[in-house]
């Protein structure tokens, strides 16, 4: 992985290409290599710049300065001023009125962070979750009323589609499309399931919604039910979330009392009921087919797909499975409209993202912001810096299957596109921030241990691979690792990715892969020199079998 201090993005939409952005790109390449900056500064395309009069444009991170419209002749000046001398070439900065969407938002930052924008967590921690009146006071059930009284199911589908909402469970599948699949499936019975089996280590955003704003999920599920033609819903809440289950059950009974669940809701002829279903401690049940198996009273082992749950789900009926955070967006989208939602976040991933900030920082907690801020900004501003002025070493995103981000990547803006470009997964939004006291072998061991324990055991690569990887890492941590162990880890990672049946197994190797690609030297120190540079590992010299 290359390490870059700056990131240059050249707009690549058809309009920019027509106006010569390819030449701009190649001029940047030449200029950077002439100055020997090609390893320090990463250059890539910006494919989603939106429609502006300022095309072609160039965006330079981490300062997030937008230049445009520019010509190839402007490039040497920008490289010299901005990238070499560190001054903003103000004469070329794009005027704000020429910009729109995400780009306009970026340019309005002026080095400061955008304020938190709360949609999903709008009411959590503000209202009394056990008082339905308080929810109604904060615009609750308005969206459900609007949907049932003034819209037909197709209108709802179109609105959700138009909002561009993507599933927040991790895979990022367009929500509107999923709803449409279920709506199209013909069956006398359909189900809506809310996936609240939030077990990704470091993630607890869903719990905040379930505990702090349970009625919003009920409202969203009823809307979803109406849109896809389902009359029954399940909320699958992991067993560890006892309080969330309790609050959800109370909220359901309150909604039933008010006639907001049950028969003929809002006199529309639409019936909908919801059951709370408790998990019993299995990470794999967050996988939607495993979750369905679990509701059916079986072991939570993933099914082979296809057929997908949208046609063959719970009790083989068409089933819509949505994550809590996804659903929590729905009432606001219905109330305020798809175009309002589109105005937030990036064009490709509209809306906000909830991040949980954890680890060796001064302020741990949870933030909901528009997509696109950088890790450095999260650490210095939201997290109030590293604990005890320690040094940032790495961050682990999105729970165990997320990536390990080394310090060199902390200026990469955190949105799906930029992260993909950098080969990093955003995952579930957990940001576990670690300082220099963290040993990579030890951390990787803990992450692999998680998969070793949580593998459902159905397919071999995952069941055996994680067990073996844990054993190898333990040996390295005890000072008896060999160089062959590193090769073995690499092949285990490859087999996990290529041969596992479900998403858990396929991503289980990510910590191993990232450890070896970003922190190889530290692992080698454990093996060759028999020392743990951070002093965390025991290095006892005893082999683990």
């Amino acid at each position, binding site marked *: 992985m290359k390490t870059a201090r700056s990131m240059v993005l050249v707009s690549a939409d058809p309009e920019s290409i027509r106006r010569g952005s390819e030449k701009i790109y190649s001029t940047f390449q030449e200029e950077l290599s002439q100055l020997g900056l090609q390893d320090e500064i990463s250059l890539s395309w910006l494919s989603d710049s939106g429609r502006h009069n300022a095309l072609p444009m160039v965006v330079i991170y981490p300062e997030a300065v937008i230049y445009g419209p520019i010509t190839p002749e402007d490039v040497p000046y920008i490289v010299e001023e901005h990238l070499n001398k560190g001054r903003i070439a103000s004469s070329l900065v794009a005027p704000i009125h020429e910009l729109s969407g995400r780009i306009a938002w970026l340019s309005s930052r002026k080095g400061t962070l955008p304020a938190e924008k709360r949609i999903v967590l709008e009411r959590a921690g503000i209202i009394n979750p056990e008082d339905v009146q308080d929810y109604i006071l904060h615009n609750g059930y308005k969206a459900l009323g609007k949907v049932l009284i003034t819209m037909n199911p197709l209108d709802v589908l179109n609105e959700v589609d138009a909002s561009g909402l993507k599933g927040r469970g991790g895979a990022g599948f367009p929500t509107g499309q999923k709803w449409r699949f279920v709506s199209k499936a013909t069956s006398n019975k359909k189900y809506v399931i809310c996936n609240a089996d939030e077990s990704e*280590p470091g993630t607890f955003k869903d719990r905040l919604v379930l505990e702090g704003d349970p009625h919003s999920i009920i409202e969203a599920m009823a809307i979803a039910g109406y849109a896809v033609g389902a009359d029954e819903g399940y909320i699958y809440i992991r067993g560890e979330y006892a309080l969330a289950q309790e609050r959800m059950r109370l909220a359901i009974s309150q909604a039933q009392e008010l006639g907001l669940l049950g028969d003929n809701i809002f006199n529309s002829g639409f019936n909908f009921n919801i059951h709370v*279903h408790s998990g019993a401690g299995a990470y794999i049940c967050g996988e939607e087919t495993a979750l369905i198996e679990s509701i059916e*009273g*079986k072991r939570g082992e993933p099914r082979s797909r296809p057929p997908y749950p949208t046609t063959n789900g719970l009790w083989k009926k068409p089933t819509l499975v949505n994550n809590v955070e996804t659903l929590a967006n729905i009432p606001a989208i219905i109330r305020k409209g798809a175009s309002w939602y589109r105005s937030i976040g990036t064009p490709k991933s509209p809306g906000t993202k909830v991040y949980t900030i954890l680890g060796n920082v001064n302020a741990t907690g949870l933030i909901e912001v528009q997509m696109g801020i950088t890790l450095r900004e999260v650490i210095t501003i939201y997290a109030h810096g590293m604990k005890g002025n320690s040094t940032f070493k790495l961050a682990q995103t999105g729970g165990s299957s997320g990536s390990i981000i080394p310090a060199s990547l902390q200026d990469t803006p955190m949105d799906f596109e930029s992260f993909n470009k950098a080969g990093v997964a955003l995952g579930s939004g957990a940001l576990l921030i670690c300082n220099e006291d963290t040993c990579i072998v030890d951390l990787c061991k803990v992450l692999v241990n998680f998969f070793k324990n949580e593998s459902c055991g159905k397919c071999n690569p995952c069941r055996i691979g994680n067990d073996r990887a844990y054993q190898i890492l333990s040996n390295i941590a005890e000072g008896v690792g060999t160089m062959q162990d590193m090769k073995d880890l690499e092949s285990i990672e490859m087999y996990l990715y290529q041969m596992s049946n479900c998403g858990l197994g396929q991503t289980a190797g990510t910590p191993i892969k990232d450890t070896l690609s970003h922190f190889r030297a530290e692992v080698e120190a454990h093996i060759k020199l028999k020392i743990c540079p951070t002093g965390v590992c025991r290095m006892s010299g005893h082999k683990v079998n």
Partner: protein
Amino acid sequence: MIVLDADISVKVHKAVQDAIQKYGASDDELIPILIHINHDLGYLPSQALEELSVIFKKPKSKIFSVASFYGMLSTTPVGRHVIRFCESAPCHVVGGRVVFQALIDVLKINPGETSKDGKWTLLTTSCLGICAVGPAFIVDDDIYGNVAPAQVQTILARYE
């Protein structure tokens, strides 16, 4: 099947009946029923699985395969109090290791074991979802966050 003395057998039977009463014997309630019985008795005795097998008209092996799959269910007896310590990365990097060691030192048992007097069982668990206040662990139904090694003794002293 393990033969239990009459007293225990009555207790197990009652726990099963209570759970069936509460949830009804439909397939989607099997796991809630198992959780209920596990909560009542501390674990799922063989007799309970046997009775469920009759009620659900499924082989006992099927019921056992479900009971043994989930982390919150146990098919072996546990101590009077069960400690579940979070061993996931977020707790680990903020000092979980030291707290875990303190638990082992105070209880004088290893993870997975039950103390000789039958008071404590020490288990590890995956993330509990309260990572921002880690290190964290659960004793029975009580959840403790921001735990420092020195607090371990005080917390455990609250339990009879």
